[in-house]
């Protein structure tokens, strides 16, 4: 506290000194200003490129298509090339589920369609905390049969047929619902968790490029064929039920009054997607769809997720699937589809999730994209922004150096001009460190003032870079702080030598100085 107050007069002195040599001070500040502005712009471009790449990772599903049973679409969304007709009265008659279920905004997720079977008004029995002494709906009917299951039109055979189409990479059919998992450790109280249940195909792991297995494995072909009672947990479920430290692999879980063996835990490998309670991917459990079919006595799929071999083939693959399914479902020419295909690529572009440069690249070069893989796109972007960053770094380094030398110069000048004053201050009791502080404060004051202008200039520059060059730029409060820090550091670094020189003056010599 005392130190702080003692600091104050020196700071006051330092700032007063700023007004002494206005022109020199101004010129010196200019160097710092340009330097700091460039540092900020550099960080903005860096962060912008980072974000673009992150968004590409997020859009790693650009080559992904989702075929949902039924035909509906939110009025606001463009179908983006996927064949879909707005149902007339007759269609909605044929698809009663779509009538009953609220149309939820599409979350851009392959399983988003599954949300359709989740009624907005929860049945009291859906309260995960509630205890019941009577058979519940899912026990009586099966969750899925009570909902979409009966009305769905997609079959496993459809999925197998799609798998044979050219340009198709992976196919995974899925059945979805909500379920409660129970864990009954010996002698400990039962743990329950209400979560999403996905009956799916073993190829799902290939499709979900941003997933990683935290432990264990995904189910195998044999387990899928054998309708094995195995469960892969999303990391959220694993943590909620078993805690963070316990590896659930090998443990037994109850679901639908059946014992399941946990064989793996999946989590997000992308820093973009953080698993959270309530999400559809990691607050979820996965089992072979065959197991779901067996246990719930189902035959159909809610959806089929497909990946195309390359992003550019998505529209062709979409067309082929449409033809194939219309043929398989015996839909005559005039009738609308009884399924809906949506692609991530169209969504990513139309919803503006991508920075303009990436979106423009994709939308403007769809043909080109046939050959351009996502990795190449990311690589190009990274290289280009890397060049830009190096350029800015060079400008920043040079101007900070120039600014720093300017600060050293003006501080040396100030020390020389005020040698007598330094002698006097020493005579009345200033120690070396008091003198050092005074001149360092002066140097830092100049560089901070220059830095403040530089921050403003850097914000403008970042804006111009993104608006004229169509570079994504991101200015965070952190980078503004860093920019200020850089300018302060330049002041300290280049003010140090003159300030030390002032402090080491001999008081008598200094007093005699004319």
């Amino acid at each position, binding site marked *: 506290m*005392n130190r702080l*107050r*003692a600091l104050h*007069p*020196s700071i006051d*002195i330092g700032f007063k000194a700023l007004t002494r040599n206005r022109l020199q001070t101004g010129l010196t500040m200019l160097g710092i200003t340009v330097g700091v502005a460039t540092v900020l712009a550099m960080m903005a471009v860096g962060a912008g490129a980072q974000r673009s790449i992150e968004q590409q990772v997020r859009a790693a599903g650009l080559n992904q298509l989702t075929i949902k049973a039924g035909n509906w679409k939110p009025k606001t969304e463009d179908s983006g090339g996927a064949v879909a007709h707005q149902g007339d009265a007759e269609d909605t008659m044929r698809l009663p589920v779509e009538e009953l279920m609220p149309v939820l905004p599409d979350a851009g997720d392959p399983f988003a369609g599954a949300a359709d079977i989740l009624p907005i008004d929860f049945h009291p029995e859906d309260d995960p905390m509630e205890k019941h002494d009577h058979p519940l709906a899912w026990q009586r009917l099966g969750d899925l049969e009570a909902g979409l299951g009966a009305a769905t039109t997609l079959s496993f055979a459809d999925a197998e047929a799609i798998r044979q189409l050219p340009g198709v990479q992976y196919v995974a059919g899925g059945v979805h619902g909500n379920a409660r998992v129970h864990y009954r450790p010996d002698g400990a109280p039962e743990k329950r968790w209400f979560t999403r249940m996905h009956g799916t195909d073993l190829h799902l792991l290939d499709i979900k490029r941003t997933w990683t297995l935290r432990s264990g494995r995904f189910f195998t072909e044999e387990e899928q064929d054998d309708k094995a009672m195995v469960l892969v947990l999303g990391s959220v479920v694993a943590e909620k039920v078993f805690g963070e430290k316990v590896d659930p692999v090998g443990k037994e879980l109850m679901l639908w009054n059946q014992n399941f063996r946990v064989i793996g835990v999946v989590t997000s490998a992308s820093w973009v997607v953080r698993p959270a309670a309530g999400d559809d991917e990691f607050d979820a459990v996965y089992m072979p769809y065959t197991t779901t079919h067996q246990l719930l006595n189902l035959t159909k799929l809610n959806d089929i997720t497909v990946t195309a071999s390359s992003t550019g083939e998505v529209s062709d693959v979409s067309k082929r699937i449409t033809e194939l399914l219309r043929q398989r479902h015996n839909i005559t020419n005039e009738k609308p589809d009884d399924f809906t295909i949506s692609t991530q690529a169209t969504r990513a572009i139309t919803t503006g999730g991508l920075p303009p440069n990436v979106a423009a690249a994709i939308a403007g070069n769809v043909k080109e994209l046939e050959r351009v893989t996502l990795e190449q796109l990311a690589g190009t972007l990274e290289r280009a922004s890397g060049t830009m960053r190096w350029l800015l770094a060079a400008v920043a380094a040079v101007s900070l150096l120039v600014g720093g030398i300017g600060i050293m110069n003006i501080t040396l000048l100030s020390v020389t001009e005020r040698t*007598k*004053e330094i*002698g*006097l*201050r*020493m*005579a*009345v*009791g*200033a*120690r*070396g*460190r*008091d003198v050092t502080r005074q001149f360092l404060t002066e140097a830092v004051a100049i560089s901070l003032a220059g830095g403040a202008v530089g921050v403003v200039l850097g914000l403008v520059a970042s804006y111009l870079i993104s608006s004229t060059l169509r570079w994504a730029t991101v200015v965070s409060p952190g980078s503004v702080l860093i920019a200020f820090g850089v300018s302060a550091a330049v002041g300290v670094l280049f003010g140090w030598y003159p300030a030390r020189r002032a402090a080491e003056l001999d*008081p*008598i010599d200094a*007093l005699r100085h004319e």
Partner: protein
Amino acid sequence: MIGVRSLEKEYHVGDHVVRALRGVTLDIAGGEFVTVVGPSGSGKSTFMHILGCLDRPTRGQYLLGGRDVSTLPHDELARVRNETIGFVFQGFNLLSRTSALENVELPLLYTRKGAVKAAERRDRARRALAAVGLTDREEHHPNQLSGGQQQRVAIARALVNEPSLLLADEPTGNLDTATSHEVMEVFAKLRAERGITIVVITHERDIAAWGTRTIDFKDGVVVSDQQHQPSMGSHTPVSA
């Protein structure tokens, strides 16, 4: 108050050794008003710099208030200067573009035993200015003050931290005769009212007469040291 024993100071200029002080031994009691006289180059300033802890002797001892300060480190010397000693210089050494009041506050920025708050600094600077009769010049800048007034501001600055020893190196060197005597009268008054020990260097005999004791330097040694009655001179007193 002050005791120096065989004080020597040498300067090395190239291969050449300049012996500025060659063995000075004397004592100054508290409350004495000492004037130091002697020809130019006789070592008066060198002596005063050592007394003021601005410099350290090459050999010999300097006891200030019973404490040997001849070997203290720099920071300790700075502290002694701040707390015990007040300086007045020939050239006033006021900070330009800074008001009289702010000039007087300066030593209070460097106090060690707890920093002085701004309000208290201001208050003490006001009182010091009042003591030298400059109450109505607080906001004046040095270039708006006469030489005598500037030197009185410098004296106020030397007084503000209540030192026990006031050192002045030719404080009247830049002043005309009448103003010189006004300044000396301020010293005499401070000694009378506060009992401050005062050492003033001068080469004018009638200025030296203001003291209670005159020490004569020649070639780095004391050639005469005499107690005497201070002559108040025949000048108009300072209007305070």
